[in-house]
């Protein structure tokens, strides 16, 4: 077993354990942190496949941004653990069926002849830049789908802001431009007066 295999199995075991932790952990904050660990070790596996751009972006976007927001929300919720576990057995067959379906799909996809041929990492020269190649593909061959996805995301962002925006009346906020415009003469009057004489 080479060093490469050792690292792969290490990451694989950590990913699986962390993913199990996500669903087994009682505390939602612990579950979210397990998910972070799962993302990090998945990024490690991608790095082994020389997909450095995707691996680092996974950490940057999912761990660095998405999960931080998740944690923010989960930490502030007042979660009643008893209520969460209510009706576990009622929903168990549904969940088990879904899990079974996913396992079947994974075996189907990964076990097929087409995928088994490309499961080895393609090695490149040292000066090969994963980022450059991806960028070139995204902005030439896939430019329309890429721009379309960007516009959809933008629309979603604007919509989310527009939905939650509320103008409250009667709040005291600074008017920055007014403050910047203020001059000494507007606020301050210097009065010259003679010193008083002692009585």
């Amino acid at each position, binding site marked *: 077993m080479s060093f490469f295999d050792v690292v792969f199995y290490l990451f694989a075991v950590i990913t699986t354990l962390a993913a199990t932790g996500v669903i087994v952990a009682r505390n939602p904050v612990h579950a979210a942190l397990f998910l972070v660990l799962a993302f990090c070790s998945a990024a490690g596996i991608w790095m082994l496949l020389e997909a*450095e751009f995707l691996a*680092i972006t996974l*950490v940057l976007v999912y761990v*660095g941004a998405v999960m*931080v927001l998740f944690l*923010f929300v989960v930490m502030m919720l007042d979660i009643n653990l008893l209520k969460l576990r209510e009706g576990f057995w009622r929903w168990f067959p549904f969940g088990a069926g879904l899990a079974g379906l996913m396992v079947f799909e994974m075996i189907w996809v990964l076990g097929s002849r087409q995928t088994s041929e490309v499961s080895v990492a393609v090695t490149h020269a040292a000066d090969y830049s994963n980022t450059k190649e991806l960028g070139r593909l995204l902005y030439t061959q896939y430019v329309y789908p890429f721009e379309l996805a960007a516009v959809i995301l933008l629309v979603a962002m604007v919509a989310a802001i527009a939905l939650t925006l509320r103008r409250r009346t009667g709040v005291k906020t600074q008017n920055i431009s007014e403050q910047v415009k203020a001059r000494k003469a507007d606020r301050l009057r210097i009065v010259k007066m003679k010193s008083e004489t002692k009585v």
Partner: protein
Amino acid sequence: MMEWLEPIQKFLGPAWLPIWTLLKIVVIVLPLMGAVAYLTLAERKVIGWMQIRIGPNRVGYFGLLQPLADGLKLLMKEIIVPSGANKFLFIIAPILTLMPALAVWAVVPFNAQLVVANINAGLLYILAMASLGVYGVIIAGWASNSKYAFLGALRSAAQIVSYEIAMGFALVTVLMAAQSLNLGDIVRGQHGEHGLLNWYLIPLFPMFVVYFISGVAETNRAPFDVAEGESEIVAGFHVEYSGMAFALFFLGEYANMILVAFLASIMFLGGWLSPVPFLPDSIVWMFAKVAFMLFLFLWFRATFPRYRYDQLMRLGWKVFIPISLLWVVLVGAWMQTPYWLW
């Protein structure tokens, strides 16, 4: 260059690679920790002199042993875990703050040859590691099981996340100018006949300002130190921490300061390149630039009053993000014209 190492390499066989990498890590981390310790002394001295005081001068000549005394004091103190705190997360939070601050150094080049991992996506790696630092803050606040620590954590985390965006855009302009994510190539892109005029400082000056101010905000330094705010509030997310666990947060903060200084020097000030054409490029320039940027950190702290929280957020979202977005577009357009000289 490293021929004398070959017999050792043969003797160790497959164990050579991990051992050699560990050695390189030690060679970087030990001086870094020393730099962090003496940066605290420099800070107290510089601010002292700016306020016409002497600063630490009792422990050793010029107070030179003061950082060691401070470190020893913190080591001897008991780490108190609050009752009801989540013990595991409480202990691991300071480690999570320090870990990314150290991991980033793997890709930082000191001169043309001296770098642990010369990877192509270096800039991206730095952004990813920098975005992990916020976990230490959030987990520390939550695991303390104290409302004050939790509110402090939310405040600091929101600040760090906000300034990360402007910082990211500033880095995007650099990678556009250099056309590479490799930090070594970014420095080499600033090489030219005119020395200082070839640096990205000139075309990207607004981004340099945005990057550095965001860097100050990211590291929770004055005037953006609402995480600590020792003259107004007790502290933020680390209010329940004591002893070495507390010290780890500050080790991380100072290591991050040094990192921001290094990155600003690499991306905008030409790294190890000489500012004038008649002097040779050398690692000395690198350290001189870093020392200057670190001095700016200390100077800021002695000069500016603390930002109020809403003004701090306004600066990040309403000033820096629009400016940096505009500059990204502008640099993109500028690079298509013949007037782009860098």
